[in-house]
């Protein structure tokens, strides 16, 4: 078989597809190879029970890079419908009270005022500050991180522009934003608010997917990361893709194909072929070898360098750096098919359209982390549940529902035992029991349940150690340190081998940003030849 491509992309996750489309658009011959039967990586909608469809892994949409949206609109006429849930969050408290975070700040303030008047007043200035900080991050996210040791002219220019942007915030806000980046989300929220439920529910966005509690430095950054590109006036936003998140993956696949890229599923790559220090193609599991001028990996950095590349091609120092990337998956998924809508002890059915957040206080979240810190599953976990069938009846039979629950903390490295059926059952029971404290009928209405442990996330979706971000989003693994110091510009020590996944700047989330940035850098190199 004589096949030759300009670029091969390993993994058709949303970032891989974004890169594929961007490259193919310039006329390059692009092939995207996906290990699974369906494209989309962790963004897939699956039938877990006849007639019940659920976003198996990732169940929320993020803020896609505007460039990706315009690519979609241009190529397909219309981008997938993003549902902006309202309320975005419903957070019940055990005493029957609850908190609602709406898209409309006034409605949110009203809900907060029932818990704390001063918090209701502080919400607006807090959102303003957080939005400013997220705006600055967004500007940094659009850029390829500079190489600190040899800042080139173009880097210098973009740094100066970024500095100028920061300066426009004014001296006071600039200092304030700088301060936020290294703080703990607990410190940040304690400075602004007093109500535990509110702080827990906002703080949850600082720890989601992280093997850290809210008292860890860098969690305030994570809260800001999760705001980038989202509704600027709201305390929290919840986005969902109508029809399930798999619709977005298919649209990105269609986009790539319409640009001329070829996509092959059930085509696992086992090795990147390297000759004279240059990537020249890939070998598939079935033994087929496909050659290309360049290879771009959407897989996470550890999988890419330690499984797909022959170690002799890398320096021991680089291998050590890659080994030291922290993954440590922190969450699991419990997906349920439900006979009817769960009834919560407070709130109304109309409140359940966004995220149902079990985050009564920051101390609750910290205690949940304490268990995991020593290698146990949280007895009372932090839960982020969504019931997408409320706004989208196509996902479940008439009158029935699907519920997808992100359960944290579920450490990948268990101190006792392994991730087998019994530990998975235990995890699901902790999660369901916890949620049933707020929705007592839950246990009776479950028709089917699917549990994905961090190990399942690794096996099924190729997420190393079950980390949903392709590597922890801690301060030491961000910007010019992501994935490893010195190699944050989507290039790798092997010529013509690139990275384009969430393991690169600016990291995890459904944004397409790493893929978008990677394509820009690759095209620069293509042009140079």
């Amino acid at each position, binding site marked *: 078989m004589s096949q030759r491509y300009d670029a091969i992309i390993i993994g058709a996750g949303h970032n891989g597809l974004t890169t594929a489309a961007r490259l193919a658009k310039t006329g390059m011959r692009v092939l995207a190879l996906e290990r699974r039967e369906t494209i989309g990586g962790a963004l897939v909608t699956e039938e877990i029970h006849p007639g019940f469809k659920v976003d198996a892994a990732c169940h929320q949409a993020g803020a896609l890079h505007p460039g990706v949206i315009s690519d979609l609109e241009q190529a397909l006429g219309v981008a997938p419908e993003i549902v902006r849930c309202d309320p975005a969050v419903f957070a019940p408290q055990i005493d029957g009270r609850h908190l609602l975070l709406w898209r409309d700040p006034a409605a949110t303030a009203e809900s907060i005022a029932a818990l704390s008047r001063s918090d209701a007043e502080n919400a607006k200035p807090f959102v303003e500050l957080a939005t400013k900080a997220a705006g600055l991050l967004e500007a940094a996210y659009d850029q390829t991180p500079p190489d600190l040791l040899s800042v080139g002219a173009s880097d210098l220019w973009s740094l100066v522009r970024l500095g100028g942007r920061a300066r426009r915030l004014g001296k006071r806000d600039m*200092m304030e934003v*700088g*301060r936020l980046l290294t703080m703990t989300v607990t410190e940040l929220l304690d400075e602004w608010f007093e109500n535990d439920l509110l702080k827990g529910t906002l703080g949850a966005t600082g720890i989601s997917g992280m093997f850290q509690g809210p*008292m*860890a*430095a860098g969690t305030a950054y994570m809260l800001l990361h999760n705001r980038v590109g989202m509704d600027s006036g709201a305390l929290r936003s919840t986005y969902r893709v109508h029809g399930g998140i798999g619709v977005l993956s298919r649209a990105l696949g269609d986009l790539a194909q319409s640009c001329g890229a070829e996509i092959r599923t059930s085509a696992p790559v086992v090795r990147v072929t390297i000759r004279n220090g240059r990537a020249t193609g890939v070998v598939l599991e079935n033994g087929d070898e496909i050659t290309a001028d360049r290879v771009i990996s959407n897989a996470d950095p550890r999988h890419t360098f330690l499984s797909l590349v022959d170690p002799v091609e890398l320096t021991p120092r680089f291998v050590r750096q890659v080994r030291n990337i922290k993954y440590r998956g922190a969450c699991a998924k419990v997906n349920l098919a439900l006979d009817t809508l769960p009834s919560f002890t407070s709130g109304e059915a109309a409140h359940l359209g966004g995220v149902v957040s079990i985050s009564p206080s920051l101390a609750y979240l910290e205690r949940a982390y304490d268990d995991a810190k020593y290698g146990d599953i949280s007895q009372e976990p932090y839960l982020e549940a969504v019931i997408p069938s409320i706004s989208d009846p196509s996902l479940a039979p008439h009158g029935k529902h699907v519920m997808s629950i992100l359960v944290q903390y579920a450490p990948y490295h268990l101190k006792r035992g392994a991730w087998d059926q019994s530990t998975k059952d235990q995890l699901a029971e902790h999660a369901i029991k916890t949620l049933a404290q707020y929705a007592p009928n839950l246990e009776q209405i479950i028709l089917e349940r699917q549990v994905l442990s961090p190990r399942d996330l690794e096996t099924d979706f190729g997420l190393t150690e079950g980390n949903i971000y392709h590597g922890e989003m*801690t301060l*030491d693994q961000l910007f010019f340190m992501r994935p490893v*110091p010195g190699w944050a510009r989507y290039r790798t020590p092997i010529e013509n081998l690139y990275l384009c996944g969430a393991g690169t700047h600016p990291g995890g989330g459904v944004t397409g940003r790493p893929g978008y940035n990677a394509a820009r850098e690759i095209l620069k190199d293509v042009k140079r030849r």
Partner: protein
Amino acid sequence: MASQNNYDAIVIGGGHNGLVAAAYLARAGKKVLVLERRHLVGGSTVTEEIYPGFKYSVLSYVVSLLRPEIIRELDLAAHGLELLPLESTVTPLPNGDYLARWADHDQTRRELYRHSPKDAEAYDEFGTLMYHLAFAIKPILAMVPPDPTSLNPGDLRSLVKLGNHFRGLGEEKLYSLIKLMTMSSADYLDEWFETEALKATMSASGVIGTFLGPRSPGTAYVLLHHYMGEIDGAFRAWGFAKGGTGGVSEAIASAARRFGAEIRTESTVARVIVENGRAAGVVLENGDDIRASVVVSGVDPKRTFLDLIEPGELPGEFVHAIRRFRIRGSSGKVNLALDELPELACLPGRGPHLRGAISISPSIEYLERAYDDAKYGGFSRHPFMDIIIPSMIDPDMAPPGKHVMSIFVQYAPYELDGGWNDARREEFGDAVIDTLSEYMPNLKDIILHRQVLTPWDMEREFGLTEGNIFHGELSLHQLFFMRPAAPWSDYRTPVRDFYQCGSGTHPGGGISGASGRLAARTMLEDM
């Protein structure tokens, strides 16, 4: 009024930084007055005979960060400063074994090899890297932080210099430094070592004085901060001052007096006099008012700006920044007078290990659980302890044959659930002695006297707000140009002629004197 201008400078607080500032000002020919609330100078750096015949280094107990240039420039040796090396660290383990690190490199290597050949190899490489990193940080500790938002040429020059300095470090060191600034000490050490007790004992120095556990990001920096120990130019050395840590304060005070500074004890400053937006002197608690051209405060930022100055004299934003400055105390101190030498179960007899530090830090999990207790408002039931027996190094600290023991204890939160009182203090002391007795079986039988200090006591007796030994946490957002609040990190304050020189300013806590020296330099520039 102006005629009552008796002094060029008044220093509030005779802690070691205040004394250093006073000495440098006096050395430059200024007429200086130091006002100390207690009956002796030194602040947290004092030796006191709390029990007849036994001298305690009451709070601070080891010296390592004291800047060599201060020792040199103030000629502290001539004023009686004598630093004795602390030669080993022993970590007793619950299984009856121990992990030791000795002054002798080969002996340490053999000992580490016994636990893990891999760690023995890594230890040297790690030490070399830390040495270089500490060296790289050194110039920063000795510089006045620039304002990064300023376009003023002085600040810009400083920033460019700083940028070039970092780039000059080269790839490996630069990135290691960034990792140290952002990671947890446990994660950082996990990249190097496998022996639990080694990682824990090294991590312990990363959590000393902070309200964080070894798994909290940000603690790796404190690890480096403690690696910067330097005695008389010998890098990474830890030591003990002859006569206890009070010996350091005495020497600096003596130097200051020699240069002409006047030091008054039992003189509590009630407030700073501000006239037309300028500091003009202070009012003592007894009503006396003393005038000076400039006033500098060595007490912590909260006391300085929230108690000593009329709130109306400071911009609201600045007051807000000081209010939210994090200063949670996390440690306690237990000092013991002992009838004889304690014996370690894992190393019986009177060995050289008793002349060094004994660290109760058997594993990362042990430290982390100690932190968990404190996180939710309790004191650690099984705390981390850093212990020395000063009388083994300086026999003058106790009567012949008897001993004093200094135990630094963590964690003890300032905000204890239900609050601190005499009963809770003793309960805390019991937890310390009970835990320590597991490793020193004869301890309970030989205690003649015990002094227990909680963060609450440290606040009341030593003026440390919330009992924080560093005058404010050494977390990333409270360092360098953010310490104590941007842009007032250059030792100046929003009130003209009013300065700060305590550990609440760059470069932070420890007996370094760097803040006092840099503050004096800034003041002399302005004067």
